[in-house]
């Protein structure tokens, strides 16, 4: 299909007053030979839109350029269907609302933006979605505990086939070991039955759920929509094709063997929460030492948790669990004395009602630091600093001490059977300047056939959690969603919600992958990176740098892309020194042409040009906001949005300098521990690449400070004039780029 470009310039919102619109039209018609170019005073009004629609329908215009307001507004008005490629030239927020009206430099800026957009069209094609072969919409759930069973049942209830893999011989996980569970619904006052049989029956009766027990995953190959999972059951192995995975491998109690200071090991009557569940299940909570029914029980909270020498996090569920277990003791013997030694009682939300219930049954809560636990012939004495008494205290003749020993995710343990080879390989293969790879602990759970390692990257403490608050299901392995206590410490009520949400995300992923669409954050994007393999030098940059592990490697180090794992950030494109990676609508030559379209004045005109590559997630909206607030900034800048700074290819800097542009400013998201980059590593990688730019600049005989990277959050709009102004001042001090005119 041939391109027919229609350019539509809006003169409303003060654009017509500030700019010479007819001169702007000439850029389109004379310089870029746009066959259609029209001007309207109210383009987003019905009449304005009708002009465009008519041209699309009758004139065959299929590339529409709207020069007016930002693409962040009127997106719904300017929607001409999927067959029309739409580009917006932001004259309003980016030019007339930030610059002097009726000024030649303002006009030059507007004309440059017109050029940049029209140059972009040269290399811009409508994306053709990647549709995989034999795409599966089945969901695999790893782990048959409460979270896993919930994910399986909920996904199946929405009409999806589920493969559920459990390592033990029956489903249930912690529920099997629990006498009762903390309440999941109002009034939140009484422990509930686990309903294990009911939950299992729901799964067994559902023909859409296929269960593997006593099973482990030998390997997970492929990508969303096309995962091939080899499941081992004893000596037998089966392969299942699934579309997405919910990882609900759960957590295990913190090793009580490390809690000797709380008496574990020294006395049989010092037990864990899990052991108390066992006792309660047997029907009698008795002293392990002599079987005497308990009269006096003490719970010690934060046994291991909130402790820099053990687990520095709070295990989230233990307060509620101890409240529940204290009620077991009271149920068995209302006269029993029950003490709970705590730091803070964290019965958040409606579990406050549960706390009150335990109190009303006579459970005594003591804010204290436990200093010693000793056993005298089965009778235990706890010594503590009672913080509210302000004095050392003692509880003696205790029959049973229960340690609330917290939780550690199943993903936190390196399987000794696996050795450390692959991990070492990742480390050795990575460039020194590259960011440290996210820790991947070889827990032998998923055994992903991914070049970047066999399991989900851990965020902290071995939990493969999302780093984002707004997007708790964000994952660095597309289509694999952690749910329940494996991903962060949580109680059972939270795990149920989490598992249901994860099931939705898995379903969403299979649906979007089947349509060739990217998932969050570029959800719906149909483009994907294509590799011109004949020019590949096997340098491995793309396979190492992809934040999502999307690209595998063959034995000759050739990249093997997996488009459905891809999130379309373009980090691979930015990394590739040979520039062989392109999207249909985003490529190295495309951006190269855009920046080359900028008109660079002669040196003697003393009109510097500064190019800004701005991340479209945060920096671009911040620049828009600067305009909306009418904050004036330098007239020398030209902005080109990028998908993520990770997609920044150094050739662009080279091109800009060769072209005579005086400075390049990169605006990306915050990186480091509290990173805000929506592609995790993009801005960080850009920073690392940039450190190599100084060499290039030196070679060109230019000051390396002509290229500078800065972090811009969406709320930094008020700082934009200063950020830009300071950089432009610096560039002006350097004087003009000597490459001008070459």
């Amino acid at each position: 299909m041939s391109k027919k470009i229609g350019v539509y310039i809006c003169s409303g919102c003060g654009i017509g007053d500030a700019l010479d619109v007819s001169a702007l039209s000439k850029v389109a018609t004379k310089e870029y030979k746009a066959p259609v170019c029209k001007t309207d005073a109210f383009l987003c009004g019905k009449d304005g839109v009708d002009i465009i629609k008519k041209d699309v329908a009758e004139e065959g215009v299929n590339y529409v350029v709207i020069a007016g307001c930002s693409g962040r507004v009127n997106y719904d008005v300017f929607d001409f269907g999927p067959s029309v490629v739409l580009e917006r030239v932001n004259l309003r927020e980016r030019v007339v609302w930030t610059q002097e009206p009726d000024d030649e430099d303002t006009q030059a800026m507007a004309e440059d933006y017109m050029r940049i957009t029209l140059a972009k069209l040269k290399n811009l094609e409508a994306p053709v979605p990647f549709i995989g072969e034999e795409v599966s919409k089945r969901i695999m759930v790893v782990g048959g505990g409460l979270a896993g069973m919930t994910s399986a049942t909920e996904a199946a209830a929405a009409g999806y086939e589920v493969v559920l893999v459990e390592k033990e011989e029956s489903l249930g996980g912690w529920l099997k070991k629990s006498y009762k569970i903390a309440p999941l619904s109002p009034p939140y006052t009484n422990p509930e039955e686990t309903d294990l049989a009911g939950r299992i029956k729901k799964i067994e009766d559902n023909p859409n759920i296929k269960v593997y027990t006593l099973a482990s995953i030998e390997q997970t190959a492929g990508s969303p929509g096309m995962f091939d999972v080899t499941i081992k059951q004893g000596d037998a192995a089966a392969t299942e094709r699934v579309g997405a995975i919910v990882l609900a491998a759960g957590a295990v109690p913190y090793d009580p063997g490390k809690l000797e200071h709380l008496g574990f090991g020294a006395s049989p009557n010092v037990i864990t929460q899990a052991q108390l569940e066992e006792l309660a299940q047997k029907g009698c909570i008795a002293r392990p030492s002599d079987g005497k029914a308990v009269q006096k029980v003490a719970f010690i909270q934060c046994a291991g948790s909130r402790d820099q020498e053990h687990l520095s996090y709070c295990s989230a569920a233990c307060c509620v669990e101890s409240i529940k277990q204290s009620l077991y003791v009271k149920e068995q013997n209302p006269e029993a004395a029950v003490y709970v030694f705590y730091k803070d009682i964290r019965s958040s939300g409606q579990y406050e009602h549960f706390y009150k219930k335990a109190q009303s049954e006579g459970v005594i809560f003591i804010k204290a630091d436990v200093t010693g636990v000793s056993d005298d012939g089965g009778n235990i004495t706890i010594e503590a600093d009672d913080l509210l008494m302000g004095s050392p205290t003692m509880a003696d003749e205790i029959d049973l001490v229960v340690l609330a020993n917290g939780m550690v995710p199943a993903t936190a343990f390196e399987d000794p059977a696996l050795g450390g080879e692959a991990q070492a390989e990742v480390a050795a293969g990575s460039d020194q300047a590259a960011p440290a790879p996210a820790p991947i602990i070889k827990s032998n759970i998923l055994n992903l056939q991914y070049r970047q390692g066999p399991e989900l990257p851990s965020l902290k403490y071995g939990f493969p959690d999302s780093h984002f608050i707004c997007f708790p299901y964000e994952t660095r392995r597309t289509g694999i969603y952690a749910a329940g206590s494996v991903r962060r410490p949580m109680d059972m009520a939270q795990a149920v919600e989490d598992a249901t949400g994860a099931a939705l995300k898995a379903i969403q992923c299979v649906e979007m992958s089947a349509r060739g669409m990217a998932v969050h954050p570029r959800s719906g994007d149909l483009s994907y990176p294509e590799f011109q393999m004949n020019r590949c030098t096997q340098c491995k940059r793309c396979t190492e740098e992809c934040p999502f592990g999307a690209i595998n490697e063959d034995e000759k180090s050739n990249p093997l892309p997996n488009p459905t794992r891809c999130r379309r950030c373009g980090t691979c494109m930015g990394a590739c020194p040979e520039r062989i990676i392109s999207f249909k609508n985003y490529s190295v030559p495309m951006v190269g042409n855009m920046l080359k379209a900028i008109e660079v004045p002669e040196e003697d005109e003393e009109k510097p040009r500064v190019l800004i590559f701005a991340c479209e997630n945060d920096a671009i909206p911040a620049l828009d906001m600067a305009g909306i607030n009418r904050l004036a900034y330098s007239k020398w800048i030209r902005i080109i949005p990028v998908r993520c700074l990770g997609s920044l290819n150094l050739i662009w800097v080279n091109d800009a300098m060769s072209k005579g542009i005086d400075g390049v400013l990169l605006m990306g998201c915050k990186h480091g521990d509290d990173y805000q980059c929506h592609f995790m590593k993009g801005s960080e990688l850009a920073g690392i690449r940039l450190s190599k730019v100084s060499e290039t600049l030196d070679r060109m005989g230019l000051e390396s400070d002509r290229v500078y990277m800065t972090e811009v959050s969406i709320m930094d709009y008020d700082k934009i004039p200063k950020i830009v102004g300071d950089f432009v001042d610096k560039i002006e001090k350097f004087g003009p780029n000597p490459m001008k005119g070459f």
Partner: protein
Amino acid sequence: MVNKSILVVGGGISGLTAAIEAAEVGFEVYIVEKNSYLGGKVTQINQYFPKLCPPNCGLEINFRRIRSNPNIRFFTMAEVEEITGQEGNFDVTVKLNPQYVNENCTACGKCAEVCPAERANDFNYGLDKTKAVHMAHQFAFPVKYVIDAKACEAGCSKCAEVCQYKAVELDMQPKTMKLNVGSVVWATGWKPYDAQKLSYYGFGRYPNVITNVIMERLAAANGPTGGKIVRPSDGKEIKSIAFIQCAGSRDENHLHCCSTVCCMATLKQTTYVREQYPDARICVYYIDIRSRGKHEDFFVKVQNETNITLIKGKAGEIMEDPATGNLTVMAEDQIAQQLTGEMFDMVVLATGMAPATAEQKIPAEISYDEDGFVASPQTAGVHAAGCVKKPLDVAASVQDATAAALKAIQSVRGQNNV
């Protein structure tokens, strides 16, 4: 005939999430929002804990997801009046309140320039003013102006006259609209518990007693003070500040439950203060500090880096010195074993979350718990999401809303009973 579309009531973070997540699976979704903008409460938050990142960052992504997804339609200034029918086939009556500005609005701002009338800015809890015709806030999505007709001067039509796009319609009337949907997700969120009910803290009487939600606006760069935390009474800088936890939560006389987020919110707000005032005295009065899970890291970090004083003891009373506006906070410091009465420049009440359903019930058969949170919907096909169900932080609301999206999909697929 089963209708496959889903109605989400409430366009805050829970509603947005439920809607977008369902739409990205492929379902048609409507959002009904009572404000003139989407985003709800989180738009008024300065930073999220524990990352201290701006909510507008994530909202921008969500708005982009809406922009690029034809499955989503939303109605602002809208309320649900009636729900009839059953799962798979609900008839919903939606009232559209007049915005007095139509879709022609280009947000050029000419109207506000000529508008002679001012109104208290509810977005900033009345701490500053806007024109009667105004944009709800800088990041408002959709980017449209709205007129607060109650604030207009009688007979004035200056905005309509100046608008060259005929976007102002001063005679706009409320409308009703019917939607037929297969399932409803109710996500109307929460309100800050009314701090005036805690008479012993003097909120409403003492200008320097504020609430945690007001603190978010004071600290926000786009807030009434441009992000400078100062005393409301005299605009003075702060040398000392107290945070009072459980102001209305964990209280049989007020909200019975714990509001979950206030401990972390306060710890976060101490970092706002510390950043602006390296030498200010910061005290937090608490019963238990509930930084659950990995949030404990933030609690430790604040203790190590922010130099706050934690006082174990619920603050009992605040007294104001009318001459200076200074406030004395009375409490029993239980660790130090003494009654304390310390003076502060400003006090922040960590008021909790009252569910929106405490005041405005869902027009369907639903039961509520003692605080008004949705207990369990008896009406099949109506699902609650987010803070109408329980007090939740943002991440947990998003998880819950994502789960609710799946429940809604199960409803419209009619396979709930498989």
